[in-house]
């Protein structure tokens, strides 16, 4: 059985090379300062986003570029899965599940818009990723379905079917996909944590920590949203949050729920656990949306800190795969936010303040 070196040497070299190409702060600032979308795209020409730029140049459609980039990332992750074996390949497949679920989410949201909200979705349906990632999603059949029952029938060979069946009544009652989205997230993390248990001790420790931090981020984000946007009670909120967070347990989450201003709670948490990040805490916004945006930014910084911590440790561990997964996701989110802001003519200062 190969040791850590034999298992990770190739994929670590490949992903570290990819990580070295992640856009630095200086480039992001240049991207933000670009006077137009066309010029911003030009800047991406000699980066990992060259594929996105090429599609944009061909079609003039930013969303098509985004789709192309999604395809590239799925393809790379598929390569990662093929480069490893055994429980590590199973773990990576679980990470790939995130892309499959995101695709399903997009499809269900479009279906919901078409069937429940009676909106036209034909233009948006062209932006769905149509190749199989993990499961066959039968996209056009799903979009053409009449009911959630039909959908779960079409997806009967996937683990999504029982989740959709369970949540169908609540979706129709509350006229929202919210409960299903939470259920999908829960399923994703439970699958991931199951695979973590099968990893070696060293890998399990690293993966457990990083996933635990991600779960903490998700939980704190949800708690704030449940209270402020969805007006859920404490019990309802707690029924939706994920277990196995790294630092934030029920006690802390309850305190967060009860706090008048949860931003203060989060910043105190950061000062206590992540002193190095304390200088990043800036003035709090007064409204719910700004506070949520601030919390999300702070939590992203925590994730980045934890990932860099993992990268500084032993090089041949699952940490490199997770680090790439997390940092790449953050990079894509940053770049797409900037490009969409350019498309809508939002000025550089506003873009900077939202990142």
């Amino acid at each position, binding site marked *: 059985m190969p040791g850590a070196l034999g298992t990770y040497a190739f994929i670590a070299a490949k992903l570290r090379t990819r990580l070295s190409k992640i856009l630095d702060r200086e480039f992001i600032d*240049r991207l933000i*300062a670009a*006077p*137009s*979308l*066309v*010029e911003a795209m*030009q*800047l991406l*020409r000699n980066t990992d986003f060259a594929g996105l730029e090429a599609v*944009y*140049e*061909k*079609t*003039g*459609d930013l969303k*098509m570029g985004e789709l192309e980039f999604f395809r590239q990332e799925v393809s790379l992750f598929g390569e990662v899965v093929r480069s490893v074996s055994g429980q590590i390949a199973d773990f990576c497949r679980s990470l790939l599940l995130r892309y499959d679920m995101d695709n399903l989410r997009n499809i269900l949201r479009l279906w919901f818009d078409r069937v429940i909200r009676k909106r*036209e979705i*034909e*233009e948006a*349906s*062209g932006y769905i990723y149509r190749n199989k990632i993990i499961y066959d999603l039968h996209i*056009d*059949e799903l979009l*053409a*379905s*009449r009911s959630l029952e039909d959908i779960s029938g079409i997806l009967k060979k996937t683990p999504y079917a029982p989740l959709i069946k369970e949540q169908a009544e609540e979706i129709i009652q509350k006229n929202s996909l919210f409960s299903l989205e939470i259920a999908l997230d829960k399923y994703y993390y439970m699958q991931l944590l199951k695979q973590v248990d099968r990893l070696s001790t060293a890998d399990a420790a690293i993966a457990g920590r990083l996933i635990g931090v991600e779960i903490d981020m998700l939980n704190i984000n949800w708690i704030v949203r449940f209270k402020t946007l969805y007006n859920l009670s404490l019990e309802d909120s707690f029924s939706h949050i994920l277990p196995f967070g790294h630092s934030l347990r029920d006690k802390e989450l309850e305190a967060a729920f009860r706090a008048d201003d949860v931003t203060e709670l989060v910043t105190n948490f950061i000062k206590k656990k992540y002193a190095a990040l304390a200088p990043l805490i800036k003035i709090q916004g007064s409204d719910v949306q700004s506070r949520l945006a601030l919390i999300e930014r702070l939590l992203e910084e925590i994730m980045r800190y934890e990932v860099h911590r993992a990268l500084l440790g032993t090089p041949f561990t699952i940490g490199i795969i997770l680090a790439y997964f997390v940092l790449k996701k953050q990079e894509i989110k940053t770049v797409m936010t900037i490009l969409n802001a350019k498309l809508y003519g939002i000025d550089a200062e506003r873009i900077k303040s939202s990142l």
Partner: protein
Amino acid sequence: MMFTTRMKYLTAVVLDKDVEKVTRELLSDGVLHFVNITEVSSGLKSKVDTMVPEVSLNRIAEIKKRIESFLNMIAVFPEKAKTLDIGTLTTVDLEQTEHEIDKLSEEVQGIRERQKNIQQEIMKLEDIRRQIELFGDIRSSIKARSHYSFLNVQTGLVPVERFPELDTELKTLPSVVLNLHTEHEKCSVLLITMKRDDPKVDPLLAKYGWEDAEITHEMTGVEDHVSVDLKGKLKAYAKEQRDLQEESQVIIRKKSNMLQVLWANLRMNELYYRIQSYFSKTSRTVIFSGWLPASKSGTLQKGIIKATQGRCYMEWSDPEKLEKSEKIKVSVPVQLKNPRFLSPFQMLVTNYSIPEYGTVDPTPFVAVAYLIMFGLMFADAGHGFVLMLLGVVGMFLYRGERGDWFNLSKLVAYCGGVAIVFGVAFGAYFGHHWFPPLWFDYHALVMGHTPQTGIIHDIYGILLLTLYFGIVVIVVGLFLNWINLVRRKRWLKLLLDKTGFLGAWAYGGGIYIGYYYMTQNNRLPDETTLLYLAIIPMLLFLVKPPLLYFIKPKESRHPFTVMTVVDFFMEWIVELLEVFGGYLANTLSFMRVAGLGIAHVSLLVAFKDIADMAGSPVFSLIIIIAGNILVIALEGLSAGVQSLRLNYYEFFSKYFSGMGEAYSPVSLTAGQE
């Protein structure tokens, strides 16, 4: 070539009214490495003000980048142009320039919008195609009038004379319109549209006399017709998109000359104002200073005098004179000036670091050492020929730029050349012995055959050869270090450092003792020899720490205690370990040259054996060719990297301090930063 270029320091004072002419002259000459005068003469700080450029350098740089990004879209790279023409320098109007670029940006963005609209139409047609595939049989979908689909599939009759107009109008919507059959002045039409377009389609159908009719009996093979129709439309849209993409390039190409002229002017203005940012001024005069090669001082002086019509004051200093007068340590920029044929080796040196001013320029020594090392590791005339060919091709491809890729290609060509020389010396031609060796048969020695003549009789002889080579390289390094130390008048270091006389004494003693031991049946030399070659130098190293301690001024010393004495001993022990361990390791390191050379031969022999085992001559040839390609690639890379490592570590560590600052004058070279 032997040493870094001699530099001179210029301090010049000119009148305020001559600033523009002087700036142009300085830019045109492009030889002055500017230094802020207050950094050298701190007394002037309170007496002068820094000159603030009229235009923001950051803004110029941003606009330049915008122009570059548009020009790069049509594969024009102004930043790679060789030089700029000072005669075309004019005052830059940043507002106007930005306005021009904004206009261009809007034009291109407009085209992207049109491309996007076409993309939307393409997606709608793709959707129709997918929906039709979902149904399978179009005939059944008409009958079913399915609620599941986004599509409206219907058949009907339209008067013949009205059909073309209906077809034209429906072209503006994502649709499939097929005339299946014409009879009794009516066309039987299959119409597929999107349900969302029903409010637009229904009035059109009514306008052109549409009658619903069941005509499924005429729909044999209709799926193929629909597919062909859709493919045709998609192809047309794709062509339109390509045409628009080309149009965006045409727009930029039309403005390419204007953009390049704007870029060049911006670049010159950027350099112009960069020069002025180093100026200091009083109420009526401007002062500036900088370094330049001593050989260029006459030309620059003439130029400034001409530009100011004699209304200037210039003072020239040597670095030593300047340090004395200002009582500070000055950082003199370093220029390495070597013949063009040594440019690849200069690149290797500057990649490592910049030598200190006044020290030996390592370039020619690196050239000799690197090539010999490479030749010894990659001795095959055939392989060398291939490398040389690759190098020459690379030089041809990159001849326009003359940058790092050109130099790398040149290096590969040189390595190929020296591999040919050593290949002929060792009688190796693609692993074969087509001609007798001029020196010794390396291949035979590696395979264990003992030659009758010659000084090298076995593989140990090869190892010894590389060991001797390593000793020569290290000794040359030490010698160069002494030259540097003498020039910098660092006498103590020259005498007592591990790379000084004392270190060389210990090294020489170690070599002799090692040689004696190996050749005299594992016996050590007599006590007197050991005393002079090993014991005395070891003890002399003990002198260094207390000497360094006591020559320091009292106020900057730590108080003398028992621990100070302990420190002296610790430093002595560490120094001894560094000397003996370091020199031994450095010397033995050169045995890798033999190792790689042996590996080169062994790989070729292995491939030859595999080829001999192949069933047919064709396979045998394929294996030989593939094997040679692999050896050239792997061994070539390996030998190149190892030669570099030996230079950087074993050679440079003896004399190269690398604390120099590169000479970078502000000149009209376009791509300079």
